[in-house]
């Protein structure tokens, strides 16, 4: 037992040949020293703990837009313009063999807030997230666990330049995932023009609005009011918001099916659920361009992707 104590004394350069007794002179100093270090560190930690923390860290920029985690999922937004485009488990859904569909987290559960998510990080985590964002670019990410289903949904954005790959990972903790298909949704605002590269307008704008759009950007749009959930041929859709500067292009993979749900104002991307799968990754590529013309010019190269 004595050896470590002596080593500490040596470390502290305490002279053993001192005239005073080790225990009456050195021990109080040692205890005071260690005590004051602990007290100092505690006060310092408390001081740092008190600092105001930023919200939605990390935020990454994708062209003129930013993407960050919010209470309802991952959202694209542009500065303080108040226009949000969300990927959320409140909208994403399973499609069952009988054709019915269920939201990952149904409205009742959202209203009752019985689900859990890692959005509300505790203060030390928020402080460390802010510090970490200086050391390396972090990707926005958020996970949800519903109260009544054995699933966990994680949304992650991998950003490079004007492109973000949104990956949603669905994990079942008890057995295979239910449903024959699974839907990833992108909710858009009523201020948006959603159209295909060929100029088919999916949103309910008037002929006058479409003509104005053509006048401003030189891109002709054909309105249509029939089908409430049209399928998007080519799996590419362009979104131009009247209140933001950037134009968003969504590109789904060849194995996916893209629809525009005009009722709920959502782009829905469906993928099949393999039998017996307990974990499934679904991806959607999102690009941001300065203008619709830039977006259209780039569509050719986006289409060529496998």
């Amino acid at each position, binding site marked *: 037992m004595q050896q470590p104590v002596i080593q500490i004394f040596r470390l502290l350069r305490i002279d053993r040949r001192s005239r005073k007794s080790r225990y009456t002179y050195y021990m109080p100093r040692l205890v005071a020293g260690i005590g004051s270090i602990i007290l100092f560190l505690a006060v310092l930690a408390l*001081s740092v703990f008190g600092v105001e*923390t*930023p919200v939605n860290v990390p935020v990454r920029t994708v*062209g003129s837009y930013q993407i960050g985690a919010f209470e309802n999922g991952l959202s694209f937004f542009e500065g303080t313009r108040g226009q949000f485009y969300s990927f959320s488990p409140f909208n994403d859904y399973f499609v069952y063999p009988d054709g019915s569909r269920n939201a990952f987290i149904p409205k009742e559960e959202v209203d009752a807030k019985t689900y859990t998510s890692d959005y509300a990080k505790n203060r030390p985590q928020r402080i460390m997230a802010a510090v970490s964002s200086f050391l390396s670019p972090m990707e926005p990410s958020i996970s949800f666990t519903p109260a009544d289903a054995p699933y966990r949904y994680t949304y992650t954005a991998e950003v490079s330049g004007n492109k973000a790959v949104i990956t949603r990972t669905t994990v079942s903790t008890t057995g295979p995932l239910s449903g024959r298909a699974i839907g990833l949704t992108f909710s858009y605002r009523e201020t948006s023009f959603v159209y295909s590269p060929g100029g088919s307008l999916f949103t309910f704008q008037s002929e006058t609005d479409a003509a104005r759009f053509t006048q401003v950007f030189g891109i002709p749009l054909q309105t249509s009011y029939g089908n409430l959930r049209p399928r998007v041929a080519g799996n590419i859709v362009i979104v131009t918001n009247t209140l933001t*500067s950037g134009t968003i292009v969504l590109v789904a993979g060849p194995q996916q099916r893209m629809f525009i749900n005009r009722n709920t104002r959502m782009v829905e991307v469906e993928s099949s659920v393999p039998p017996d799968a307990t974990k499934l990754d679904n991806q959607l590529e999102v690009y941001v361009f300065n203008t619709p013309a830039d977006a259209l010019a780039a569509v050719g190269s986006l289409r060529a992707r496998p």
Partner: protein
Amino acid sequence: MRNLPLLSLLNDFNAAAAALLFYLGPLFLGRAVYIGYTAAIARTKRIPVIRHHLASVPFLPFTWFVFGSLVLFISALVSRYLLLPFAGNAGFIDVWQVMLGLLFAGAAAVNCIVYPILPVSRLFRFSGVLAGVSVLSFLGYSVWQHFSPYPFNWDLYHHQTLVQTILSGRYSFVTSQVTDTFIFNGYSSLFHTLLACAQLPFRPEVFPFWHWVSFLHLITTVLASYYIAREITGNRLIGVISALTGAFIFESIVVFTSFFLIPQTFTSVLFAFAVTQLLAFRNRTQTPALRILIPTAMFLLISHYVMGTVAIAILAGIYLYYRYHNRVLPYLKQLWVWEAALLCIIAALLVSALLPLGFINEGEGAAYTFTLVDKFGYMVRVYGYLLLLFVPIGIVRIVHQRKEPALVVLLSGLAIFSLVLTQLPYIIKYYVLARYLIHTILAIGVYALLSYIPYTKARIGAVGVYGIGLIMILANNTLVWQNFMWYRGYTAQVSEYEIEAAAFLKKVYSGTNTLIISDPGTQHILEPLSGLNSQGGAYMNIDSRRALHQFHTATGEAELREALVQVKDTVEPEPDTRLIIVSGRYMVWQNSSLVNKENISYNVWFPHDLTYTDRLKLSTFYARPDLFQQVYANPALVIFKLKQ
């Protein structure tokens, strides 16, 4: 890992040289002037000049800087008001350049004759301190600028506008007479004269220059933090703790002491050095020299009238305390004196909340009136709980030890701090002066806990941990401040599109009598970057604001033209060309309420590109080719020329 923007700026020689000249020019000139000044005094007292010059005043370089700055300012005033009327066709800059040439040539001669500058041992010691302080400053500035290539100092634009106006030949003691971007004469043109003098030979790019000069300013604030704490306590480690605090604590609201170079922060650094010098006189058992204090007081006053007045009051208080020490000290030992001081603070807090002071600096002043709860929120953002936890420990330590310089600083610091707590418009600005004193008390508090650690290396290690804690606070503070400013991959108040547009304006319209017309934010950014004139920049007057509002809603050709012609610059009322700049900022500003548009404190602080709705509005310009001619366009803005 991102490239640090600061590193890329090191390549800009002109900017670095000009920024260094801002500090070294007055130092060089001031040393010569001070030697001459001292020689004149020494002649009357029969003291050898050099010995007297080197030994009698602590922190001499500070005094040189004050003297040099004053002489530069006087030289500009003499050139403008005495020599220019007799200079024929020569402009102000021509006359001032000749005068500067003569002054610096004379200074070079004097500085060469009176040598050495400082004893070698002191130079070595100072170099070590400077190197350490520079490293800390670089770390702090790198954290603050990590996400942005552009400086965040919103005020730099209108200061740069004034500097450019001086360099184009218009000069006055009164800032508002030089350019209408200044509507409130809170300071003389001393600060801008020094900047103009630094930019005159190098003509640097705006952003690299302001990065460099802000970085050097940070170094001076950290140096001031180190020296004031070391001088008060005689303890280098407390100096280091204070320097760490100075490097990594940034008051990101109203105060802006360390990372932004503006007249109030410039004044505060010199105040901190003045306090240090005053205490150093006392520590060396010398009588503080009035021949030094009076020019310093003059300097502080003209560099910022309000801040300078409070700074002078504090300096005068310290001076009088030392002068009449024996008479004052018995009172300070009386409990009732302290009770009365405490009651005064409480009364000031209560009365200030009740006084109807909204009329003071109406608009902006009202926007910067904060309650105690607001101030607590800002304190938490800037310091975490550092002030709450370490300052009381520091106060207890100071009161317990009863060392005179620390007690003086405690009283001065708390006096300004209690002023800051009152609910008066803009009062929080005074923290720019209190900061150095409060940080010293904080450093004493930190050291109070560390002093019980018997092992020196462990103590130094603990100081290192303290530095890491401060960096964590700064990282959070930085993100809280900048997180809503993301724009195309970085955080900023200015966009590359705006910089490109300014370059276009400079290239095509430089040297012409052109007025740019846009929202206050766009004008504020483009005026200094392009060198063209605007009506008031961000401080556009109420008539212009109303005219611009009318322009947005006007439909007829005559109405549109009339609205634009009503925007009249007070210095250059009849421009040859009017350029209307429709930017994303402009559209956000135009779409806000009339109350906001008329409010001087309302600005669109960060860049916005043009949206679809904005472009729809632009089509009304294109529909009138007889009135508007597009001369430039990019995704953030379109510039139209108003046809005659």
